[in-house]
């Protein structure tokens, strides 16, 4: 897998008139997992978007090496298409070797995306991320809506991705059952 890394220095985030947090630095490289923890509204999703380069930080800078895959609350799959076709659209753009991760979607491939349940949509998003071939995964609440079995399976897939040389940043208010996670509590940086 291609070399990857993410270094964020002294990030501050402003939404509207409020500064959500400031002075936050983090770095992750191949094999590393960072868990962004904190209560609702603390700015986890905004930080994920800043790390992805979709949102400009109010202060600080982010350096990225390697491709990025993002899974947030927006599925980015065409609702009217069967899941197989919707996923195939991204594969035609990415043309990557899909990772051998099973999210139990085999029975759902002919179901239009808009009929998928919350947990199934989450698994579809993770499958899209895994198939992108990007080494750096940014996951916003990846375990929301997953049942106990798939919570374990999803974490196993994240773990396997890191063992293969990838890096993962997870924003989640839930505790993670992953080993060697670098946890960053956003509350510590609240203004």
């Amino acid at each position: 897998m291609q070399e990857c890394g993410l270094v964020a220095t002294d990030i501050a985030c402003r939404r509207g008139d409020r500064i959500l947090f400031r002075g936050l630095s983090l770095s992750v490289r191949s094999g590393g997992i960072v868990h962004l923890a904190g209560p609702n509204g603390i700015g986890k999703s905004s930080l994920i978007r800043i790390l992805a380069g979709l949102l400009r930080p109010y202060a600080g800078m982010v350096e990225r090496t390697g491709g990025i895959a993002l899974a947030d609350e927006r599925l980015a799959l065409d609702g009217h298409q069967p899941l197989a076709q919707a996923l195939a659209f991204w594969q035609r753009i990415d043309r990557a070797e899909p990772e051998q991760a099973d999210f139990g979607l085999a029975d759902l491939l002919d179901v239009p995306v808009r009929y998928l349940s919350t947990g199934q949509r989450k698994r579809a998003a993770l499958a899209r991320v895994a198939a992108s071939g990007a080494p750096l995964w940014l996951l916003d609440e990846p375990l929301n809506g997953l049942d106990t079995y798939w919570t374990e399976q999803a974490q196993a897939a994240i773990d396997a991705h890191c063992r293969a040389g990838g890096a993962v940043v997870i924003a989640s208010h839930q505790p993670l059952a992953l080993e060697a996670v670098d946890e960053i509590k956003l509350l510590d940086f609240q203004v």
Partner: protein
Amino acid sequence: MIRKLWPIFTRDLALLTRGAQGRGGAVLPLLFFLAVAMLFPFAVGPDARLLARTGAGVIWVAALLAAILPLDRLVEPDVEAGLFDQWALRGISEEALLAVRVLAHWLSFGVPLMLAAPLSAGLLSLDAQQLWTVELGLLLGTPGLAAIGVTIAALTAGMRAGAALGGLLAIPMAVPLLIFGAGSLQPDGEGGLALLAACSLVALAVAPFAGGAAIRAGRE
């Protein structure tokens, strides 16, 4: 880059031509265009001379109104679904995406209008010479209408009441196209075609950059 844009182009074209879940698509603006051309003779009466004199202008008004219909599903659904974010992460610029979308939009709306124009020319009793000028005008003018449509759609994506606002914004921007398009059908109006093409080119040149900036600004 082309390799990445091709699947996006085919998806855009399929989505704009057939519509999602068989709704929308290219048929609705087309029927709307024909309906306006059909209503006009009912409104002003069957006087063939009057129809022939005003008919070309009616075709252009109908084309403009038909261009407004699909505005709300040109960009908004893909911003909402996070597709533009995903494309940005893959290093595909918004400008390239919107240029592709203008092309797909034109193919799904401009070309059908040109195919339907002979039918509406018959309803408005235009002669062959006028029909030829209308077709030429549509060929030059509808790319501009498509570009204006995509620009406005990108500007209003994510706004509440964006659909209604988009229509109101598009009308004044399309006025030059309407003037030169309809004007080219007046006696000695051929110069209008050149000005029509010029307006179209300006709209086509501006659309990807204005729309791209709007989508990036919408992320904040």
